[in-house]
């Protein structure tokens, strides 16, 4: 109702959009123009070549699956439209628009295979401290104490059956090793590393040697004992020497690569050979270079690796499950047995039938190892451990949940990241990057220019047509379109900075189409105003009444478009997603412009003499619009036609007005005085009511 105030709001909005953009350009890496998509700007093309292990045959469905996983990864990083295709039935070609940053490239290059491995040993991230070497024979009792840090580790539990009842401070979850207080829980915290670094560096750094290390002969020199608090500063050869001595269990001066005994299961400590132990001792997980990952680990061999965040290192058994055994992984708020929603998050895993069966076997075995602290498995992505939850009991139904430890639960972010890694992380095949090259736009720039030129001609025709149809009102149409255009440009530029939005040629076409949809809002509005004028309302009343009716229509029809945009955005992938984004954006901008610009401007203009007076060229001329065309009510359910009315000299009010004018004219002639103008802005409207 207060046009100036509404306009001020619009100006603020435009200022905010362009202010954000300006700030982005000034202090960040935004640019004044929107980023363009692959077809218009070109980008980087990465060709991935599959690595077939053991001469296996690649099927088309393997490739399709891999393409889908990569697409999900790329889509999850924004709305940039990547092109992913297979080449020669083997290679996968991924084309990313523009100059993608390293992290986006990593999404594609990461060979990422998720594997579940049993955890055999965990240690502090630093390499072993040679000072420790003085064989003070670590057969001391450190073995059983690895659980001291158990408080902050994820826990895995059977989905739905019984959730760890961590709501009560009993904290049995932390008491891993021996006693049976876990009766109330099916999961308990054990050392491990949570996603977001749940394992704190501050805890006692005790490399936890397997309890039954003697079985493998890897030796009891315990590498741990508070000694390794600080990163080792020793020269590497010293380190290697020390590690060598530590690892060389039988003292024969050679590192054996063969398990001392035939391992009976993946949890068997026999997997920790001298070589494995040596690697473990030497590995420095505080060095980021060791945490790049890269895949290609042998699923049938033990693995020595780091936690992804570098807070621990591990010896892991052979892989038990592959990422492809996970049907889905989601994250959400945790509920306890009573169905109460708790204030922390969990990741819910759903295994495939086959995966569920194996998972059952593994968890059954691990549950029996509770006492030894070996009841943990590690989820390995790209050879790095992203989570190492512990298992308290067999989980038979193929559904599991991973929760944070009591007092240090997952945040939403952590849970969502882990779920994402678990569901998108699994590629069925390993790939190596065969080539990575710049690629030019698939459409020549002259093509784009011609397209835009054609669009401009179309825009000009729109202006001409609305001038023809709405005369003076075309001014509002054109101004509104200009405002809509400016807002769209600004928002797209901001979004391409913040969200990675990129404008493709279909996107440009979509924006041109949006001209039509935006213009329709004005058409609906103007036609409603004209309808009200035809009904015989004064112009200012017609604007108010017409707006009320037009508003409903505009809201209803835009709601349909918005619904389409939202549904398609969340459910579709690739190009359709980009389309949905453009559609939603233009619909919202249409609403903003109509509500904050067109209507208030109309309200203001109708106060002017040109528009409000219904000038012949204003497009609101009541005579022209046939305000008198509407029949007048005669009473008793019948009407008088305009012609009939005309014959009688108009309505009573009109006749009186005419008489008054005549009288005023007489007076004017007489004394030159001015007639009091009582008729107001709608003076030409012939009121029928």
């Amino acid at each position, binding site marked *: 109702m207060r046009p100036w105030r509404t306009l001020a709001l619009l100006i603020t909005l435009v200022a905010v959009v362009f202010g954000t953009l300006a700030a982005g350009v000034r202090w960040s890496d935004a640019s004044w123009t929107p980023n363009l998509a692959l077809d218009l700007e070109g980008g980087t093309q990465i060709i991935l070549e599959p690595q077939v292990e053991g001469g296996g045959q690649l099927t088309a469905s393997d490739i*399709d699956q891999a393409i*889908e996983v990569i*697409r999900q990864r790329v889509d999850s990083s924004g709305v940039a439209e990547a092109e992913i295709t*297979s*080449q020669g*039935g083997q290679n996968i070609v991924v084309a990313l628009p523009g100059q993608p940053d390293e992290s986006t490239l990593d999404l594609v290059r990461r060979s990422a295979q998720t594997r579940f491995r049993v955890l055999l040993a965990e240690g502090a991230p630093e390499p072993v401290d040679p000072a420790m070497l003085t064989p003070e024979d670590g057969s001391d009792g450190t073995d059983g104490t690895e659980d001291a840090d158990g408080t902050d580790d994820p826990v895995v539990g059977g989905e739905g059956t019984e959730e760890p009842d961590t709501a009560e401070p009993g904290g049995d979850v932390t008491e891993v090793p021996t006693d049976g207080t876990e009766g109330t829980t099916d999961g308990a915290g054990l050392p491990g590393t949570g996603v977001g670094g749940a394992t704190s560096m501050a805890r006692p750094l005790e490399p936890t040697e397997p309890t039954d290390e003697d079985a493998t002969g890897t030796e009891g020199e315990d590498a741990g004992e508070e000694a390794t608090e600080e990163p080792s500063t020793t020269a590497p050869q010293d380190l290697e020497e020390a590690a060598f001595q530590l690892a060389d269990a039988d003292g024969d001066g050679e590192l054996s690569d063969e398990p001392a005994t035939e391992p009976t299961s993946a949890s068997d400590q026999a997997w920790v050979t001298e070589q494995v132990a040596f690697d473990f001792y030497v590995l420095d997980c505080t060095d980021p270079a060791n945490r790049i990952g890269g895949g290609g680990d042998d699923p049938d061999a033990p693995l020595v690796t780091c936690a992804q965040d570098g807070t621990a290192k591990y010896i892991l058994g052979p892989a038990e499950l592959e990422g492809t055994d996970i049907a889905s992984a989601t994250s959400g708020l945790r509920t306890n047995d009573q169905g109460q929603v708790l204030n922390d998050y969990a990741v819910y895993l759903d295994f495939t039938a086959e995966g569920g069966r194996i998972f059952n076997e593994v968890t059954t075995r691990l549950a029996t190892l509770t006492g030894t602290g070996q009841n943990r498995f590690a989820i390995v992505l790209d050879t790095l451990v992203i989570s190492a939850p512990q298992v308290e009991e067999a989980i038979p139904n193929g559904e599991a949940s991973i929760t944070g430890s009591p007092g240090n639960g997952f945040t939403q972010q952590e849970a969502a990241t882990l779920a994402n890694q678990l569901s998108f992380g699994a590629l069925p095949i390993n790939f190596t990057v065969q080539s990575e*090259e710049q*690629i*030019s736009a698939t459409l020549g720039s002259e*093509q784009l220019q*011609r*397209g835009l*030129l*054609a*669009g401009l*001609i*179309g825009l000009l025709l729109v202006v001409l*047509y609305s001038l*023809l149809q709405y005369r003076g009102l075309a001014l509002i149409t054109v101004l509104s379109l200009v405002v809509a255009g400016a807002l769209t440009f600004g928002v797209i530029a901001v979004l391409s900075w913040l969200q990675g939005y990129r404008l493709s040629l*279909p996107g440009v*076409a*979509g924006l*041109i*189409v949006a*001209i*039509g*949809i935006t213009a*329709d809002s004005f058409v609906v509005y103007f*036609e409603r105003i*004209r309808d009200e004028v*035809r009904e015989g309302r004064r112009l200012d*009343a017609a604007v108010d009444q017409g707006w009320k009716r037009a508003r409903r*229509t505009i809201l*209803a*029809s835009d709601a*349909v*478009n918005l*619904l*389409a945009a939202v549904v*398609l955005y969340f*459910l*579709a*992938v*690739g*190009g*359709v997603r980009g389309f949905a984004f453009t*559609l939603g954006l233009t619909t919202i901008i249409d609403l903003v412009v109509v509500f904050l610009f067109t209507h208030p401007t109309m309200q203001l203009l109708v106060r002017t003499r040109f528009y409000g007076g219904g000038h012949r060229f204003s497009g609101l001329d009541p005579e*022209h619009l*046939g305000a008198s*065309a*509407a*029949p007048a009510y005669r009473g008793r*359910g*019948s*009407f008088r036609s305009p012609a009939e009315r005309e014959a009688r000299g108009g309505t009573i009010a009109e006749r009186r007005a005419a008489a008054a004018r005549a009288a005023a004219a007489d007076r004017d002639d007489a004394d030159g005085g001015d007639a009091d*103008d*009582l*008729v*107001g*802005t709608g003076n030409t409207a012939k009121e029928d009511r």
Partner: protein
Amino acid sequence: MASFAQFGNELYSGKRSYDIVGRRRRWFMISAVLLLLSVVLLLTRGLNPGIEFRGGSEFMISGTAITDQQPAHDALAEVAPTQEARVSTVGTNAVRVQTEELTDEETTELRELLAEAYEVDVNDVTASFVGPTWGQSVTNKALRGLVIFLVLVTVVMALYFRRWTMAAGALVALLHDLVITVGLYAGVGFEVTPATVIGFLTILGYSLYDTVVVFDKVRENTEGVLDQSRYTYAEAANLAVNQTLVRSINTSVLAVLPVASILFVGAFLLGAGTLRDIALALFIGMIVSTASSVFIAAPVEVALRGRNPAVREHTEKVMAARERRAAEAAASGEDPEAALADARPGGLVAGAHLGQRAQPRRKRQRR
């Protein structure tokens, strides 16, 4: 354009009226013929999916000093004139050309032509098969999204208009538009690209949007229609369609102008072939959508609504009242036609009391 405004005035007041709802059989026949034609076109000519959907051939020219795109277009035009190549430069001295799948002879021929055009040895031009960028999974996800959208939008419309008939009418019009658009597109024989699919999706939104605008007027006109006996539901709906006719024409002209400009000026005069697919899909779709909102959606809605016992009863009541009035008029010597001509739908809905807003105003003081 006084005559057009005059046209609008007459349509609004009901002085000029096209019996669109009443002659629905005619429109349904026409649309049935169009639908049949579309289905026949779809079945005989079929859609011609582009390289993005079914893959194609890829030629890599390495070690060339020429990185222009035009020679590749020219070479392809010699081998397969109907195709549009996707050409891009890779790195600094290589050119990638993607085409639809070619036969072995065509492949050999194009390799030689490309080698010649880019002044390299034939062995530096490698040909391979490239898979679809728009795979089956993309299509499946888009379809799933569509189905969910349609279910949701039906519910939303049924709730907004408080009548399921309107949601049904809008859906019928939507399907009608999509089938005809896709069918005519197949008839023209342009390649179906992702841009085309985007165009079809736009039409989906546009068709519903346009129908909602018309239905909103129908809803407004038919509010309380059962509480009076001067005109029937169908007549009120027909008036609404007539009253929105000018808006429908103006909107479709405004929306089609830029698209037509891209299609005819851009694609045919300037030769911007890459936009012609989406422009054609939109051009057909927008015209069909606007027409169907008027000629299909509203008549279907009235036909469905007419099955409602309350509405049928009301129609009979109105007709009976008319006959009575005509008879009365005839009895009192008046022209029965004239007595009935007054029965203008609309304008009789009791409005709110305007209070002092109905009073003449003093001219605003300049502030």
